[in-house]
């Protein structure tokens, strides 16, 4: 994932920002779907993992802003804490994907995702507790909103994000993270 040019990374980031608006549209008809299934998180994670932290940060900030402007979701009142949460997702996945190299793509992806999901939710809770809804936010509300309500979304992220990354690698739309054994053997011959 380090062979991509900055032009391609920029275009992929643009596509992920567009998907931050489009994916949640499909879930709008289902009551409370945004907070349960978290569809907007997926493009931000993908952008951070594929393009790096700078692009993940831009996607995390501008994705919800564009979606809020065009469809009214997330509502303006929730927008700042959501932008902070998604920006953390994009930055952390980007940094960890660059630093962690275990030799297994699955291990790299799951370690980066797990740390980013925890960090993003903690930061979102902290920004709500100390900045955006100061004095009216509690630990119970954080656990209810970011852990209990959104567990299906977390499960979807753990299942779908590695699947999407592998599908993109297999379609040669993003470079392989590690050289495959069979292609390494062929190159050796």
């Amino acid at each position, binding site marked *: 994932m380090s062979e991509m*040019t*900055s*032009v*391609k990374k*920029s*275009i*992929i*980031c*643009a*596509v992920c*920002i*567009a*998907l931050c*608006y*489009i*994916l949640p*549209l*499909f*879930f*709008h*008809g*289902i*009551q409370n*779907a945004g907070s*349960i*299934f978290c569809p907007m998180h*997926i493009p931000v994670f*993908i952008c951070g993992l594929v393009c790096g932290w700078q692009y993940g940060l*831009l996607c995390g900030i*501008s994705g919800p802003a*564009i979606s809020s*402007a*065009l*469809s*009214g979701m997330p509502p*303006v009142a929730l927008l700042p804490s959501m932008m902070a949460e998604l920006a953390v997702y994009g930055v952390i996945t980007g940094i960890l994907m660059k630093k962690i190299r275990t030799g297994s793509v699955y291990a790299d992806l799951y370690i980066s995702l797990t740390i980013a999901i925890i960090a993003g939710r903690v930061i979102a809770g902290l920004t709500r507790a100390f900045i955006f809804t100061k004095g009216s936010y509690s630990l119970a509300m954080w656990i209810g909103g970011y852990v209990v309500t959104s567990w*299906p979304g977390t499960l*979807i992220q753990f299942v*779908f994000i590695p*699947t*999407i990354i592998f*599908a*993109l690698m297999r*379609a040669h*739309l*993003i470079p392989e993270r590690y050289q495959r054994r069979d292609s390494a053997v062929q190159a050796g011959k």
Partner: protein
Amino acid sequence: MDRGMTGKYVPGETLLHRMDERAKLLAFLIMICAVIFTDSPAGYAVMFVFMAALGKAAGLSVNSVLSSVRRLGPFLILIFVMNSLFYTSEDPIWHFLIFSLSREGMIQGANVVLRIALVIVMSGILTRTTSPMELMSAIESLLHPLRYIGLPAEEIAMILSIAIQFIPTILEESDEIRKAQIARGARFESGKLRERAMALLPMIVPIFISSFKRADELAEAMEARGYRGAKNRTAKEKKKIDLRSVVMLLVCACVCAVQIVI
């Protein structure tokens, strides 16, 4: 042929074509605010009359203005139906099993659909009367202050303008993927919350693959034409915003103010 025309720049010499691109983008942002505040029949009537006037000023036919909305018709109907049938209301008009038709649900569905339609029409008018280069330059101008804190305003402008231009294309492809899933037996409009959500999940991977294919093609085309990042680009000298554009901005601000008052 018409498919490729969605949001594509159409060269011309109309009032909107000659308007300053920065003013056009600012007007677009003001009008998005107006759409957010619109929630009454009178408000929607004002918005549609204004959109018709803008379409006329841009020299666009009603057909071409509405083509993107018409293409997304099934998707918009789906949003309306889902909102109407699954909105939790204390006073439903009709109730059967999990379905609950309510006035509030229909109003909510109509609001979402009309807002999406208005934004699609507005972005269609903007992209048809503003070339991609002008649009990028306008976003770059609005982001100019970011340069003073060391952020790459040109790169960010390029990414945001491409993101906005990608929205109608990816929406259309997503709708095609949705239809393909329906043909395979997916049920998006019925079943419990879990079942409807599960029906949507198989769409996620194909949407990403088709979007990344688009991204790959565009990146290759840009690199083949020698694009090496927004930093290395030269820009034409910026002109001052003319009186006509200022008047247009004021008119849009008035429409937004009317929506807030209504």
